[in-house]
């Protein structure tokens, strides 16, 4: 359990500081489990030989895909959860191209080459706050660990998960163990029909929230951010910019902030929308 909650928001500076002193490593982990949850998604458990370093919600790993003729660069993947007792990192993988398909094919006993843990973290509000966690598609990945850590730190989380249809919706058990889960599907096959922003949680009920976190497709995050901004509620987004190095060395992954270009891989992937330009 991470005690991130000092009763106040951690400032970006504090978080960067803590990342700066946290050390990253490159390691061959061992796949201990690969479970397909539907046509598009698998959940992979990868165990480290060593004790896991501290991992903060919103952080990611960068995976070298073996034997891919067209996967020259590493693939960044959010940390979905960790199992500290087994030293396992748990990943939610959506198959979209060659790299993610090859990762999704890994089976028990296979090695998986990762650089981790990377990136900053979502901020944890004061105890007693209410937090809305909005995930769309594979963007739900960092929400699970975030929800757990919020709860551990005395914050009340609410999940709002969107999907195209119930066939590719996540299994909800793990989320339900932590908090209430609301669902929207574009075809109405489960939960409320429409986008996440059509849900009461993003409308009437939004006022109750002290903070909104979101990760998912860009248009979704922008729509969520617009609603939060409108109600003047703090909102953090997790961006999925293209990355080459993942460790702040190449400056490829920049996002336009009010203080100029910042690296999504080290100064993000989590940003407060008030710091972003054109959000």
């Amino acid at each position, binding site marked *: 359990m991470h005690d991130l909650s000092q009763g106040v928001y951690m400032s970006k500076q504090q978080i960067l500081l803590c990342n700066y002193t946290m*050390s990253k490593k490159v390691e061959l982990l061992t796949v201990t489990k690969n479970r397909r949850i539907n046509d598009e998604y698998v959940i992979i458990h990868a165990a480290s030989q060593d004790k896991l370093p501290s991992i903060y919600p919103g952080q990611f790993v960068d995976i070298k895909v073996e034997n891919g003729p067209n996967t020259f660069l*590493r693939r960044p993947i959010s940390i979905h959860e960790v199992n500290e007792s087994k030293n396992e990192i748990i990943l939610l993988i959506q198959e979209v191209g060659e790299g993610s398909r090859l990762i999704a094919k890994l089976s028990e006993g296979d090695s998986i080459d990762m650089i981790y843990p990377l990136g900053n973290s979502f901020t944890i509000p004061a105890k007693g706050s209410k937090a809305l966690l909005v995930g769309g598609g594979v963007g739900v990945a960092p929400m699970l660990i975030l929800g757990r850590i919020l709860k551990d730190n005395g914050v009340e989380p609410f999940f709002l998960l969107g999907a195209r249809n119930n066939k590719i919706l996540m299994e909800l058990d793990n989320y339900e163990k932590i908090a209430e889960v609301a669902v929207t599907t574009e075809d109405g096959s489960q939960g409320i029909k429409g986008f996440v922003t059509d849900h009461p949680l993003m409308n009437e009920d939004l006022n109750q929230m002290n903070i909104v976190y979101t990760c998912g497709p860009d248009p979704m995050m922008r729509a969520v951010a617009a609603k939060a901004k409108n109600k003047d509620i703090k909102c953090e987004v997790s961006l999925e910019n293209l990355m*080459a190095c*993942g460790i702040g*060395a*190449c*400056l490829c992954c*920049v996002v*336009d902030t009010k203080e100029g270009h910042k690296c999504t891989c080290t100064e993000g992937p989590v940003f407060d929308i008030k710091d972003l330009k054109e959000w």
Partner: protein
Amino acid sequence: MVNLAVDLNGLSLKNPVMTASGTFGFGEEYEDFINIDDLGGIVVKGTTLHHREGNPYPRMAETPSGMLNAVGLQNKGVDYFISDIYPRIKHYNTGIFVNVSGSAIEDYVATAEKINELDNIPGIELNISCPNVKEGGMAFGVHCPSAVAVTEAVRKVYKKHLMVKLSPNVTDVTEIAKAVEGAGADSLSLINTLLGMAINAEKRKPSLSTITGGLSGPCVKPVALRMVWQVYNAVKVPIVGMGGIMNANDAIEFMLAGARAIQIGTANFIDPQVTIKVIDGIKDYMHRHDINDVNDLVGGLITE
């Protein structure tokens, strides 16, 4: 014990393995993975006289066995480097080079002059070959008169090791190499990135905000090796070879083609420990081939 030290025209490196500008940050980014002091040298990020925000996102596209970048020399300017970064990295026990870029000769000169004052920076790499900014760099490096003009101007004010980085986007790299050597370069590094382009067919859009960008990685290795070989046969100053080096074998190929030292760029993104593996692999090769001095590899290609 094998000798790994190489001499770049009076400047000694403990081994021939350096890192390439723009791919290794200021070294600090890799401290978690390797001991920077184990490297022959590092070339830090492209530095300009003034702060530059670089190009808009997207700046990167993956390509077959390589990548395009269009970072566009994002950096906080030479004064920030001197005040904020230099103090943090000057303790590295490795050859630290600053990659100096600019859009006008006066900018190059002013930047080099400032860096000349830094005790623990034994050399600069003059970047006259960056393809990613309209005004900057590449235009100088693809024609002899401008390449000579900027080299001569910097040579006048810069008293330490002056390495000049050549562009591969030219008809005859030996012409530029000879001209730059004549203008006072202490060594030549090559290649910078090849000008390339990627398109997203589904979106019908260029993959980079700047449409074109710089190609690096193993895909460029055959072109880079050829240019190192050509330049080696045309000039006397030492050559620092790069372009797609992923492992010790690649590094040795560059040395056989004539490189006295090599730089590793894009490969750092794939494996942040690649530099150390390359140093170890070179030692291993030397053992297997009974070579005691790494300098014996330089230009050692057997062509009958």
